[in-house]
């Protein structure tokens, strides 16, 4: 299979590279865009560790080819916060101990950065339902659920006019 030029828009930046059309978005992000925060957990769409946003929607980057994403806006964990300035959700995960080994965490952050925009007042049951697309082997989920609820509350308090 021959390589061809692919242009992706990732975190607001255009990145060009040569790759085979069969190259997964996941692998292109990690190898060609040098963004290793998106993790390969199962490569068959179950665990959610590789979740990124495509045009704002959570997407499994292991289930699509990089070349398919030309012309779309891709956002990865590297666009969310920095170690010095965490996002509201990341800060809540930190305070609630919502991560342990951290391997699944970027996928969870990406899923809920999008989810909380559309669902500002989720119940615990809502959060658990939405989180069921991300496997975590360390935490038992309880503190992740608490962190998402805390982040939602802080986001509502920060922008009361959206209520």
């Amino acid at each position: 299979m021959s390589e061809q030029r692919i242009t992706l828009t990732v975190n607001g930046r255009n990145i060009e590279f040569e790759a085979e059309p069969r190259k997964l978005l996941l692998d292109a992000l990690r190898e060609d865009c040098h963004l290793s925060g998106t993790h390969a957990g199962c490569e068959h769409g179950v665990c959610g560790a590789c979740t990124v946003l495509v045009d704002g929607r959570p997407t499994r980057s292991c289930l699509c080819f990089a070349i398919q994403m030309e012309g779309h806006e891709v956002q990865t964990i590297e666009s969310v916060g920095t170690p010095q300035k965490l996002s509201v959700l990341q800060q809540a995960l930190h305070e609630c101990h919502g991560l342990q080994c951290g391997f699944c965490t970027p996928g969870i952050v990406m899923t809920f950065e999008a989810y909380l925009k559309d669902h500002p007042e989720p119940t615990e049951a809502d959060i658990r339902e939405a989180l069921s697309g991300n496997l975590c082997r360390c935490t038992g989920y309880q503190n992740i659920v608490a962190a998402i609820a805390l982040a939602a509350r802080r986001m509502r308090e920060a922008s009361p006019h959206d209520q």
Partner: protein
Amino acid sequence: MTSEAFVHIGAHQPRKEDARLLTGHGRYIDDIVVPGALHACFVRSPHAHAEIRSVDMGAALDMPGVVAIYTGHDLARWTTRHRMAPPIDGLRAMEMDTLPTTKVRFQGDPVACVIATNRYLAEDAAEQVQVEYAVLPAVSTMWQALASDAPRVDDDLPDNLLSHQHAVHGDVAGAMAGAHRVIESSFSQHRQTHLPIETRGCIADWDVGRQHLNFQVGTQVPHPYRTTLAARLRLSESQVSVVSPDVGGGFGQKIALYREELTVAAVSMQLGRPVRWREDRMENLLASSQAREDFCRTRVAVDAQGRVLALDLEIVEDFGAYSFYPGNYLARVVAMIITGPYRIANYAYDVKVVLSNKVGNGPMRAPMSVTSWVMEGTLDAVARELGLDPVAVRRVNMLRPDELPYTMATGEVLADVSPNATMDGVLAAIGYDSLRQRQAQARAQGRWLGIGVCNVVESTTYGSKFYKSAGIAGSGHEAAWIRIEPSGAVNASVGLGATGQGYETSLANAVADGLGVSPADVHVLLGHTDIAPYGMGSRGARGGTAGGGTLYLCAQQARATVLAIAAHLSGLADAQALRLLDSRVQQKVVDQWQDTGLTLADIARVAYLDPLALPPGVSPGLEFHLTYEPPPMTYSNASHACVVEVDGATGAVHIERYVVAEDCGTVLSPVVVEGQQHGAIAMGLSGSLYEHIEYDSATGQNLSGSLADYLVATSHELPHFELIPMHTPNLSTPAGIKGMAEGGVMGAIGALSNAVNDALAHLGVVVNQQPLTPMYLRGLIRQAQLNTNKTST
């Protein structure tokens, strides 16, 4: 907690690890860029048991990007065989090749290794390697393994019985003969796997000039791993560095040196180039370590009040095809500690471990996971048979506080545990008495509620004496160093291997309080064999006592030197009236602590840059090193209680409430401990309800090769866990630490099964195997209803 005043130990602080992991800046194996690295992909057996007739790699070698393809014959020249032969009664020695050369022993067994310029091309070529097999009959169950005409998994052994041990303590036969009743129960725990979200992987980089191997791998035990890796490559331990970066979960899967990893290292040495490998999820499910799969039978002699007069335990474990650990490594511990918090003097056990055509077993979070289910399920059976309340049966058998320390029938000493307190705590929290009323009302309405209780005694820190007395090869000691730098910054290291437990946070607290500084000023370095001292790594629940305890003692040693210097500089005869707090030296004047103006940085400056000002006998610099041997065993204890509802129409189990009271002594970090409790309970519940590595009983084919087959509980299935922390310090360990992290699995397995049994008790059926799938439970319910219909017509 203890009489020692802790400032940081036990205080609530969020983790130091989080910022990098939350923002995608962790560095896991696959994130490490190594220019020019080649990629390995393994050709794996499609058969459970087969002779390798030939390997044709001609077409594959012509594929784009392929650099080389190697088989077991190549590896046999470059590496030594693996021999597992500790001198243990009843254990047979076992050897294996690095990669099989004559026959494969399970579906997924690696037969060849393709090296190519990228992973896609390596996988393409692996598909073109043609291996001719002659299929042999497979051993797919432990009962097939024990059959006299069974195919032999290992042709060098006379049969499939890898390990067999038994013991009798007290007068079991006499107690059985004279008992009010003898009640028999059985428990079948199914095969599972650890399933870290990060699969296995490694990077080998042979430095031709220095003749040195840099080996990066996610491992729980960096130094023991290096010892084995160096030996099998015929290198000195000075020629190998093992470096473990951020690790995406281990749970016991990342301890042994795997054959794939050894192959990658050997290939890098041959090619003189860096080689990397990361398995995919299917390989992780087919060929990475698996665990559990044991059958247990108890016979218990009781009096009319349910008092246990004797216990007879039989265990058969299906160990898989290869011995990465001694065969008795897992099941023997179950037999040693089964009686838990109960007074049982007459006890016999018989433990058989058999080989089968499956992946080799390894320890998985709570290698003794089945223990509490077996003991507590046995007590529930006693209650059922005698018409007693399950809690009442526990009470008549449970050790009273005045009976501690208690020497179990096996010789294990149980001390500093609080089973009465945890059970009382959890029963009060869940409202046990009123729950029984609610259960009766619900049943009248056709709803099947069940209440399950499970008391846990978790073996946490395995000292060298335990290994010796249990007949298991191993040491339980640990090592640490602390270096106070010229600026007063504190670096510390210990031989543990982090896989997400938050060591950088919890261990910093141990150093902080042992020394007298803020945890923010303590930097914990782990997972690099050239930096960390030689320790035994992370396994069991030894991180707290062995890791934290050793660092705490080392920090106390450092503090004594720092204060001796401070006393000398202050013109005091000794340091009796001095302490270090938050890096400042304070002096007690009358009853008040007063700041002396001296800081740790001042002391460090003298120690490094003005050593002539040091007191006599104190050597320059501030470096400390210490090794520590923990007690033979430490125990944490807990009581789990849960309420479930079983849907009679579908067999589905809904967990309504889950409460745990856990006493794990002094906790270094409550944040970390709570997270470990949640994770352990979740793993126990998920395993009991869903997870199942299933092999076809006829062909030995692994039927669980994807996460659509190997089901793991999600946030949707798991309940909210209510925790009641208790803190009885261990009086034999530094700072009263006990360790924890596996008991949650033990308790969850038992509490859930007991609750489901309780919910179905009115049908006269007993759940005696896991997982508790709807299909399994519906089968029991259907049979019970058929029987009822038969008797009523």
